[in-house]
C-alpha cells in the first residue's frame, strides 16, 4: 500500500518474490538517486561565471612592446603590488592591475557561486554542500597573497616550499586556483561531467602556465608579433576561458529545462 507507514520488512517466503522485490527496490532507488542528482546539479553558473571573469581579464594580459635592444633572458620589471602569485613574474604585461583584478574577481566569483547555490536550493528544494568549494578557493587565494611576503621573513623562510615553481611566471596562477575550486565542486556535485570539465580546464590552465601557447598558433600561421607582440599572452588566457564557457553553456542546456518545470510548480 503506497504510503503505508506500518508496511514492514517481512522476508518474503516465495523464492521468486524474494528476489523480485529487492531487485525492484534497488532499481527504484537507483532511478530516484539519478533523478535527485540531476535535479540538484547547478554547476553551469560557476563555469560560465569564471569563463566570463577570465575573458574579462584578457585586456590585463596585453604585453608591453618588446624593446628592440632587449636581450635574451632580460627581465623587464614592472611596478605593482607585492602579490607575485596573482601577477606575472616576468613583468611583461602592459599594466600592473592584474593582482587587484584577480583578488576581486576570485572573491566575487566564489561568493556569487555560494549565493547561486543557496538560491538554487530554495528554488529546487535540494541543497548542494558548496562550502568546501568556497573554503578551498578562499584558502588557496589567501595563501597566494600571504606566502610571498611571509616567506621573506627570516623565521618563515621555510614557506618557500609552498611557492608553486614555474606555475606563476605567466600570470595565470589564478586559473589554477579556479581549477582547484572546481575540482572540489565536482566532488560536492557528484558530477562526472563537472569532474571531466575541471580536469580538462586544469590541464589547459597548467599548459597556459608552463608553455607559451602562442607558439602553437604561430605554427598555424598567426603572428603574435604583428602588433608588437602585445597579443602574445592572449591565447593562454582565452583557451581555459573558452573551455569553461563551452562546458557552462552545455551544462545550462541540460540543467535549465529540467529544473524549470519544478520551479514553476513550487512557485504555484
Amino acid at each position, binding site marked *: 500500500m503506497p*504510503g503505508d507507514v506500518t*508496511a514492514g520488512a517481512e522476508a518474503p517466503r516465495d523464492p521468486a518474490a524474494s528476489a523480485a522485490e529487492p531487485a525492484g*527496490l534497488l*532499481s527504484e532507488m*537507483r532511478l*530516484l538517486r539519478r533523478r535527485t*542528482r540531476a*535535479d540538484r546539479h547547478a554547476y553551469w553558473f560557476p563555469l560560465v561565471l569564471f569563463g566570463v571573469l577570465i575573458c574579462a581579464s584578457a585586456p590585463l594580459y596585453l604585453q608591453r612592446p618588446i624593446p628592440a635592444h632587449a636581450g635574451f633572458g632580460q627581465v623587464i620589471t614592472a611596478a605593482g603590488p607585492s602579490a607575485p602569485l596573482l601577477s606575472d613574474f616576468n613583468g611583461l604585461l602592459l599594466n600592473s592591475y592584474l593582482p587587484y583584478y584577480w583578488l576581486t574577481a576570485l572573491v566575487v566569483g566564489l561568493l556569487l557561486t555560494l549565493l547561486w547555490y543557496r538560491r538554487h536550493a530554495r528554488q529546487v*528544494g*535540494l541543497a548542494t554542500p558548496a562550502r568546501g568549494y568556497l573554503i578551498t578557493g578562499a584558502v588557496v587565494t589567501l595563501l597566494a597573497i600571504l606566502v610571498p611576503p611571509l616567506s621573506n621573513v627570516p623565521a618563515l623562510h621555510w614557506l618557500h616550499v609552498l611557492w608553486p615553481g614555474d606555475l606563476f611566471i605567466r600570470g595565470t596562477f589564478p586559473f589554477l586556483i579556479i581549477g582547484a575550486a572546481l575540482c572540489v565542486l565536482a566532488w560536492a556535485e557528484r558530477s562526472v561531467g563537472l569532474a571531466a570539465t575541471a580536469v580538462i580546464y586544469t590541464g589547459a590552465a597548467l599548459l597556459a602556465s608552463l608553455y607559451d601557447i602562442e607558439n602553437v598558433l604561430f605554427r598555424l600561421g598567426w603572428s603574435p608579433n604583428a602588433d608588437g607582440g602585445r597579443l602574445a599572452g592572449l591565447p593562454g588566457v582565452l583557451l581555459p576561458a573558452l573551455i569553461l564557457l563551452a562546458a557552462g553553456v552545455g551544462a545550462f542546456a541540460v540543467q535549465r529545462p529540467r529544473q524549470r518545470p519544478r520551479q514553476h510548480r513550487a512557485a504555484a
Partner: protein
Amino acid sequence: MTAAAEPEPQPRELHPTNGIDETVHQRHRLGILTITAEAQRADFGYLREALGLTPGNLSRHLTVLEDAGMVQVEKGYEGRRPRTWVRITGEGRAALAAELRALTELVRRHGTPVHGS
C-alpha cells in the same frame, strides 16, 4: 577404543535478510534516505513530490526515521513562508548502505537482474 573427534560445526553464513532493518526497508523511507543522501538537505516539498506522498504520510515516515536517529528535521521560515528541511545523519547513511548491501546480496543469491542499473 578412542572416540573420533567430532568436527566443529561451521558457523553458517547469515542470510542477507538479517542485514535488513525494518525501519529502512519500507519503500518510502528507503526513498527518503536515498534522496537525502544525495543532497546536503532536502526540502519537505521536494520529498513529497518525488515520492508521491501526501504531507501527512510523509510526516509520519519522517517521524519514524527521526525517532530512529536517521534524519534530522529542521523547521524554519523563508520570509513569511514556513520551510522544512530534512538532513540525513551518519546513522542514516550507515543504515542506507547496509540496506542496499543486503538487497544487492539478496538479488545476487536469487539471480534476478536489477533493471535500470
